[in-house]
């Protein structure tokens, strides 16, 4: 059983309410920093912890905080990115829905470290009922003196507001999120200037993911060095993984980044294996934008070691034989699933969600979707596969924001690892139209584990 730092108390009856959360030791980190630590000391602890941003990019959080410009007389802002929209990812929702005070506590400590007097939670618009849960938690924190003016007599003022988005994946990108918070279309900005210098309303701003900000609480409670001892190498602390697709036990799991991918999929503590006696075919371990891996590459790294659920091990071998931790959106596919069809759904997603600013993304995503649709429905040509490869190469790295990469990578990985499945569709148009996919030879050749 791995160590639980974020979800340890999530199953306690009534933990959503302030009284129970406080009774269970909640808000201790706020007391600790306000009594004993300067804002810079809080940032120092976060640096020592080795915490990496949990939204997908994995950038060191303490370092990001230390980049924040602090000009005299200019307000600074902390924005919590709760826009969670990457297919496969639903971990932040779990945290906000079941243990909202953990996020509020992390936000107060982080606001103090960064000197933010107005802090915003930007949440995807569809999570409407979670807005109510968060606003209730904020009201309780206010009523109990953890927010407002001169908190605990420190002279520090802080208020937290919830801003609801309106359905746009791109608003998970930090500069698009800032534009949206300013009441505009979610068009990403060209960087530099980075938000740390010129963010919301042109003021210095830090944008961090929900899980990242919640993790500040155990970091302060344990101490940065102690937190850094959990995990392996530069993958410190715990990580929330949202597991879905063809598994027996979909859900949100907290892991300490030392367990193997194989154990995560097959052990009863986590996903519980593949249902209906099916074999595993492929997995996308970090949200839809990261490369898909067939079973033979999923359990072993390029060096032949057991692949571990952490940043380094998942990325081992680069994109040729590896993938990424990303947001922790773990999508499992059984032997009956069609990689071409799945890739088509992702291409459609990225075409739908492109903001349209950059031509390679605006035009390229739609083009990829059309070609994939043709291949999937038995109307493709062999040359389409190479054309698809060529288009994704022309999108990757040629856009203002990472949405272009996110759209290109799933297509690239699907062709790289499952090219003969694409060819099968071209060569078998009738079966393809009848949705008779075949090609079970990709599936894990090992016997199906007995439940």
């Amino acid at each position, binding site marked *: 059983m791995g160590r639980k730092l974020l979800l340890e108390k999530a199953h306690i009856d009534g933990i959503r309410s302030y009284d129970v959360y406080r009774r269970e030791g909640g808000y201790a980190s706020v007391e600790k920093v306000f009594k004993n630590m300067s804002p810079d000391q809080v940032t120092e602890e976060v640096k020592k912890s080795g915490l990496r941003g949990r939204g997908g990019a994995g950038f060191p959080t303490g370092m990001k905080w230390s980049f924040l410009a602090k000009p005299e007389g200019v307000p600074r802002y902390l924005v919590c990115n709760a826009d969670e929209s990457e297919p496969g990812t639903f971990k932040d929702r779990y945290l906000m829905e079941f243990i909202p005070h953990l996020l509020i506590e992390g936000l107060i400590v982080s606001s103090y470290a960064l000197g933010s007097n107005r802090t915003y939670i930007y949440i995807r618009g569809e999570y409407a009922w979670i807005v109510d849960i968060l606003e209730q938690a904020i009201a309780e924190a206010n009523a109990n003196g953890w927010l407002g003016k001169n908190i605990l007599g420190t002279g520090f003022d802080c208020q937290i507001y919830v801003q609801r*988005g309106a359905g746009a994946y791109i608003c998970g990108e930090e500069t698009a999120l800032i534009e949206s918070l300013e009441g505009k279309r979610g068009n990403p900005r060209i960087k530099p200037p980075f938000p740390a210098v010129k963010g919301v309303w042109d003021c210095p701003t830090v944008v961090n993911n929900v899980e990242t900000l919640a993790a500040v609480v155990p970091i302060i409670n344990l101490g940065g060095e102690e937190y850094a001892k959990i995990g392996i190498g530069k993958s410190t602390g715990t990580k929330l993984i949202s597991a879905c697709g063809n598994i027996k036990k979909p859900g949100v799991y907290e892991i300490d980044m030392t367990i193997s991918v194989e154990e995560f999929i097959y052990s009863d503590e986590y996903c519980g294996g593949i249902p209906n006696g099916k074999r595993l075919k492929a997995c996308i371990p970090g949200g839809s934008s990261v490369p898909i891996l067939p079973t033979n590459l999923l359990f072993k790294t390029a060096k032949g070691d057991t692949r571990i659920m952490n940043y380094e091990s998942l990325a081992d071998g680069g994109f040729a034989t590896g993938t990424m931790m990303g947001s922790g959106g773990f999508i499992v*596919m059984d032997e009956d699933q069609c990689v071409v069809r799945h890739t088509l759904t992702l291409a459609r997603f990225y075409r739908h969600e492109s903001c349209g600013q950059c031509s390679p993304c605006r035009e390229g995503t739609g083009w990829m979707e059309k070609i994939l649709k043709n291949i999937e429905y038995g109307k493709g040509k062999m040359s389409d596969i190479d054309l698809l490869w060529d288009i994704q190469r022309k999108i990757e790295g040629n856009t203002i924001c990472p949405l272009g990469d996110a759209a290109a990578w799933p297509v690239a990985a699907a062709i790289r690892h499952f090219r003969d499945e694409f060819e099968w569709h071209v060569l078998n148009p009738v079966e393809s139209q009848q949705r008779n996919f075949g090609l079970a030879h990709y599936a894990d050749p090992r016997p199906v584990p007995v439940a």
Partner: protein
Amino acid sequence: MVFSEDKLKKVQEIIARYPAGKQKSALIPVLHLAQEEFGGWLSAEAMDYVASLLSIEPIEVYEVATFYSMYNLKPVGRYLFEVCQTGPCMLNGSDQIIDYIKEKLGIGVGETTSDGLFTLKTVECLGACGYAPMMQLGKHYREHLTKEKVDQIIEECRSRATSLN
């Protein structure tokens, strides 16, 4: 077309969340309020009204309303079924659920039933991948959908509509 007193108070509360002079930031939340208040969609008149409330140009409202997928720019049925069709939901049978709803309601995607009760819309990932297949209905998610659950939801909506009429 004007907001009720309660809604106008709410608009002022939202504007107060932002620094002075940054009231445009209230646009997205106020458009949500307008959609709720004015029949589930945003007409040009509703958008112009929101522009006047926030002292911004109507074009600033139009460009935002047309960018975000949660705003409806034409009338929708009383019950809007927004069914997720992205990868993880597809792996768990969303294609079959969408086909079943079409058959059951006798409409295609983007259409509204002749009695004005139901509109079917397909949407991209709603962040409920572990509870797939799923749809959004109003403020809440309906998850782990099966044909039986779809029947139940349709019946629920019909009886709610009858009791409201």
